[in-house]
């Protein structure tokens, strides 16, 4: 019997009770390691991530992991830009606590700027290489974040959510109906990233998505470093204060509007980066790419993974892309169609299960958990 093993309650004072969970679980353990150990572990983790395209070669386990209906490196690349978007949205929603339902708008701004500057279909006829378009695309994405943020960030909570929702729809509808942005016809022949092998074949071709995944992963790693440093700086501290109690933050002397704008601009920058990557791999895009579902999906990923936690956002972003792709090409036992058709139903079930068993997300932020508890207290009748 398990009951006989538990020590009598009260024998150990609560403060001295130390188990795996109270001492911080995996993260607590990781934080207590020597910095060299931590570096080695992080490098191993990164190496595993870079080797993921070959996961199918791992005996027994490999075939369970890789996708069947879509080629595995492509699925990995899809995951990489979803993760990028989740990381960006996590800055806005998770760090600064601003509910943004129109995040896809910034993704669209990044992708469209690249398309306009590079595609032969564009009215600009500049036909720049992909690399040259990046700084312009990112600058415009960031600027659009500031332009959207300046008038709207005085709003709070639900009101902000609705305005951002409107923003994403305006971008999509504008892209659909505008002659310049070519609507459904879209832009084709968007150039791929540069570089070629010794035999003259391009690294970033059409057949193999592996190099795109590696590029995406490298960008993700850079973004992780950037965002982590920001989070630990004065900026991150200001975001934390704004998220926990905006009014209290203000009377501590935090210039709230400035830091909220920063969060929006940085989120928009990372979202634009996702759009740049997407355009560079696909070579073609039209207004159908930027449907609202996309924003909601990324937000679901951030919340599911653990809002406010970098690794939670990464896991969530990866899952929202991986789950539907993994379902592709599997026949369901009842209707004998592709399980992919049921992706939203299955996805919904997964989200409900997570909300029941892990309401703070799969890898929650400990502060976030505390804030949620505090808010419950406020709502509870006195």
């Amino acid at each position: 019997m398990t009951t006989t093993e538990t020590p009598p309650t009260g024998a150990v004072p609560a403060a001295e009770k130390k188990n795996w969970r109270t001492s911080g679980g995996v993260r607590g353990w990781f934080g207590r390691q020597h910095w060299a150990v931590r570096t080695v572990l992080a490098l191993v983790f990164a190496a595993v991530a870079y080797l993921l395209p070959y996961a199918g070669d791992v005996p027994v386990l490999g075939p369970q992991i890789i996708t069947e209906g879509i080629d595995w490196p492509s699925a990995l690349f899809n995951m990489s830009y979803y993760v990028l978007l989740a990381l960006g949205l996590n800055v806005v929603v998770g760090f600064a606590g601003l509910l943004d339902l129109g995040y896809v708008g910034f993704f669209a701004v990044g992708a469209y700027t690249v398309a306009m500057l590079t595609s032969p279909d564009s009215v600009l006829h500049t036909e720049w290489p992909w690399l040259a378009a990046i700084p312009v695309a990112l600058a415009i994405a960031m600027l659009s974040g500031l332009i959207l943020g300046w008038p709207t960030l005085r709003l709070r909570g639900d009101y902000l959510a609705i305005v951002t929702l409107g923003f994403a729809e305006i971008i999509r509808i504008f892209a659909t109906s505008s002659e310049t942005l070519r609507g459904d016809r879209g832009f084709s022949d968007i150039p791929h990233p540069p570089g070629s092998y010794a035999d003259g074949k391009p690294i970033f071709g059409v057949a193999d998505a592996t190099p795109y995944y590696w590029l995406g992963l490298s960008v993700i790693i850079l973004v992780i470093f950037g965002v982590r440093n920001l989070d630990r700086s004065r900026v991150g501290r200001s975001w934390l204060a704004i998220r926990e109690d905006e009014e209290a933050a203000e009377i501590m002397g935090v210039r709230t509007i400035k830091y909220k704008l920063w969060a929006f601009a940085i989120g928009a920058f990372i979202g634009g980066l996702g759009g740049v990557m997407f355009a560079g791999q696909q070579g073609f895009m039209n207004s159908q790419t930027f449907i609202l579902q996309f924003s909601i999906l990324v937000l679901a990923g951030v919340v599911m993974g653990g809002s406010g936690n970098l690794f939670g956002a990464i896991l969530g972003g990866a899952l929202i892309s991986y789950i539907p792709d993994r379902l592709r090409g599997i026949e369901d036992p009842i209707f004998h169609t592709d399980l992919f058709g049921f992706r939203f139903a299955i996805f919904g079930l997964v989200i409900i299960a997570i909300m029941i068993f892990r309401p703070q997300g799969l890898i929650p932020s400990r502060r976030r958990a505390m804030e949620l508890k505090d808010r419950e207290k406020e709502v509870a009748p006195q």
Partner: protein
Amino acid sequence: MLLELQDVTLLYGRIQALHGISMTVGEGEIVALIGANGAGKTTTMRAISGLRPVAQGSIRFNGEDITKMRADLRVVRGVSQSPEGRGIFPGMTVRENLEMGAYTRRNRAEIKEDMDRAFTLFPRLKEREKQVGGTMSGGEQQMLAVGRALMSRPKLLLLDEPSMGLAPMLIQQIFDIIVEINQQGTTVLLVEQNAQQALSRAHRAYVLETGRIVKSGTGSELLHDPSVKDAYLGVA
């Protein structure tokens, strides 16, 4: 005068919350603002700290017009508030909350000095240094809110209902500490429902009714004023 409000009116939408408030707080004083629920006490505090824009009138602080100044700059000038309902950052530890209080300051040594001072004033906070704010009791949160407000080294400390929800023993204690803070050189403007305590500790006080100041005087004057006794002190 350290703080001077002149004919300040303030609107929430179309509802007028303050109807021309004029009051002063001199350097080194403890001034209390008493009144019933909804009289405009907290609104007056929010006007002074810059959380709500005023519609008319002016606010001068330390010789400077701050009527239209941003809230964060008022903190730099020396106005600090412990808000109603405490406004503790629930996910931050006691130490992190106190560090937030020193947000506008750079001098590490001075911040450390003030941190020690807060821990001396509230030894309980030292015991709870690493505990997160959200898990603390009401009294502890109140101490933290006051301690945090002191961390900006304010010239003027605004305390909004420091005794709210506290046990009688703790109320005594928190008022003792307020007097101590004042004696160490910080001017205090105090909003209170506990008129008995507030009036017996304050040098001067104002009585607020539906957004207007209806009475003012020294603490003991008001304490013995029959109409004040009747309305706020619960003795006939």
